[in-house]
């Protein structure tokens, strides 16, 4: 089982900070409007931040993936654990991408697309850019080797 790059926690924590900021801002606006104590929005934002950080850490601990012979296997989730198997024959295309936060800490993600309606795109975050590119190429080669017929 491959784990993600530890720095992904920074990305997720940064996202949690942004989210807490948004929640706090909304709470502050409401508090201002109803003339409530300013400690309420601060409290809400802090709680959101703490929950976000805990989730980020737990998510990191629970994340894992394996590129097997005929399928990619992923394990993730905090409250709801999800294990996905993506058969290589079903891969439609593969992206590697880098968000702003990811670029900040020097990471990248690989996104695998299938024709399915539900898990249609499976993201593997927390890869170094080289690893993301390598994974993309590996998956491409595997998908071609798997010789999927019409994917739908």
């Amino acid at each position, binding site marked *: 089982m491959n784990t993600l790059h530890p720095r992904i926690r920074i990305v997720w924590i940064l996202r949690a900070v942004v989210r807490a900021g948004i929640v706090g801002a909304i709470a502050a606006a409401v508090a201002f409007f109803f003339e409530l104590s300013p400690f309420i929005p601060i409290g809400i934002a802090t709680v959101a931040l703490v929950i976000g950080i805990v989730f980020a850490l737990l998510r990191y601990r629970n994340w894992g993936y394996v590129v097997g012979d005929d399928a990619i296997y992923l394990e993730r989730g905090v409250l*709801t654990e*999800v294990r996905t*198997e993506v*058969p290589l024959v079903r891969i439609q295309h593969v992206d590697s991408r880098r968000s702003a936060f990811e670029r900040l800490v020097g990471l990248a993600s690989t996104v695998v697309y299938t024709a399915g309606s539900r*898990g249609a795109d499976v993201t593997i975050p927390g890869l170094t850019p080289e690893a993301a590119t390598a994974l993309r190429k590996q998956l491409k080669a595997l998908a071609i080797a798997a010789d999927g017929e019409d994917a*739908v």
Partner: protein
Amino acid sequence: MKLAPVSVPYRVLQKASSLVITVVLIASFGAGAQFGSLGFVGAIGGILVLTLIYEIAYYRRFTYELTDDTFDLQSGVFSRREREIPYGRIQNVDTTRNIVQRLVGISAVNIETAGGGSTEAVIQYVSAAEADRLQQEIRYRKRDVAREDERTRGDRDSAAETDARGDDERPEIDEEVLFKIAPSELALAGILSFDPRVPGLLIALFTGSIPFVSPIIPTTGSTLVFIITVGILLVGAIVLAWVVGALSAIINYWGFQLTRSADELRYERGLLQRYSGTIPFDKIQAMTIEDNPLKRRAGFATLSVETAGYAPGQAGGRGSEAAVPIASLDRVEALAREIDSYGTPSFKRPPKRIRRRYFARYVMALGVLTGILYTASLFVDAAADIPWYLPVAGILVAPIAAHYKWLHRGYWLGEDHIVTRNGFWNRETKFVAYYRIQTVLDTRTIFQRRWNVATVVADTAGSLSILGKDCSAIDIDDADAVSLREKLTERLNDALADRRAARRTNASFQWLDGHDDADLSTPAFERRDPNQSDDSAETVASDEPANTTDSTEPARPDELEPADTKADAETTDFDDDVDADNEEADTNGTDSVDNTEADHTDGVDDAEADYTDSVSDTDEPANGTDKN
């Protein structure tokens, strides 16, 4: 090719009428609109002229063409667009004609492909004859493309032989009527379609208009009179809802007919607006049989078929239109088997302990409801008299509800299909062929983990699963879930390998004489490539041409029965489910209950045993058993 010329005035009227209505509305809201005034008439005239010009331009710009391997479409007045849709990618072709269009003799054609949020090609409008021709022509060309494909994939030397088949040869497609709605079924479909929106609407109207209605209700009389009046109104609303639902169902499904040709399903329906469409067998993603307690009692069910195309008639509601609205269960099952032959499901239920979870869930819901009512009765004066303790009585019903929820839940792994069943009030039995699976997920929420259960979802490209109606085995034992997930992936890969092998052999033999001949199956086996492993059994459809690479039934060489496997399967229905609900507990219930009992200890082995058991029950040649 161009659109039908009549479509120009039709589209002008269609567009202009809505525009004119908008203008009239705006004008009537605007200060002092003079409807007779020159400006007003001029505005409407201007709109008409502008739409006419636009529509003429649209008509001139809109061309389509059936090329050798794509359907080409050029359209657009301001921004032009050209598309080429490969025949092999077309999911379904639908035509619709509403009553006006039928009078003028035109019809709309929609061509769906997988992916994308909307219909790929909308052709408004061509003559009815042209619409039929398009549907047919695309069907032929798809077949040609599929054959071409197989030829190139297959042995090179077969190419010379197949070339003997003239390209312009159009073997007549024999159509077989699979299903025709009987008047009684249509009536039943009507009776059972209660439209809940109508009473809702009525209540909304009614409460909005209490000041106007209240004089009718005799408030001065005794309470008895009052209650009777309200009762009559209520019954009236329900009857009205029923009538509306019945009428709309009858209008929608009037003359419903499902025909099958070699590689497609074709449906036709509708009284005022006529719908017809085709669904290629090899594009079918999943089938669903739906019923509810009432239908189960009466032995009826609903069948729907999903493709990956964006479901036709989105606006009209959910899912695919190739649904049989209602028919007796054995007819529905025979039809489902005809479309895609599956075995005889014997469902494996979730572990029994899960009933306690459902019970707890219901009790919690009741508790919350009671709490809300109680709080309301404390703080809201008007609600002070509400018997807030009433929901508590529900606790008596909760164990029964929990039991039934459990009873109707289950999954079954067939030879080529996974079948799942969920729901008591609206029970859905979903059939997904292994080779249609896209991804397999197993999920466990924080609550499910407490009970050591999980949910396995077999995701397909079907359009209904967007609505969350997936093929899912809910609340099965954790160990089972893991093994189910692994098994599904494995079987998907095996099924795909089988299909590839089948295609290779088919490609070299199928088109020797260019006809869909059932007898071809035998030579295919005899000439089997010795290098191929036995596992990837050569499959040839017994009564279908090979280019419908869909329901080819895997056959193990040693129990080779080339023909009629399907016919056997049809007669073995799962009768236990025909029975009314209440009996289910003892008839079909008993055997599977025992199974699930054993679950807790050796769930995996049990599933295995279950599977092989039921496979050997059916007369079909069993390939799947090898794989375990």
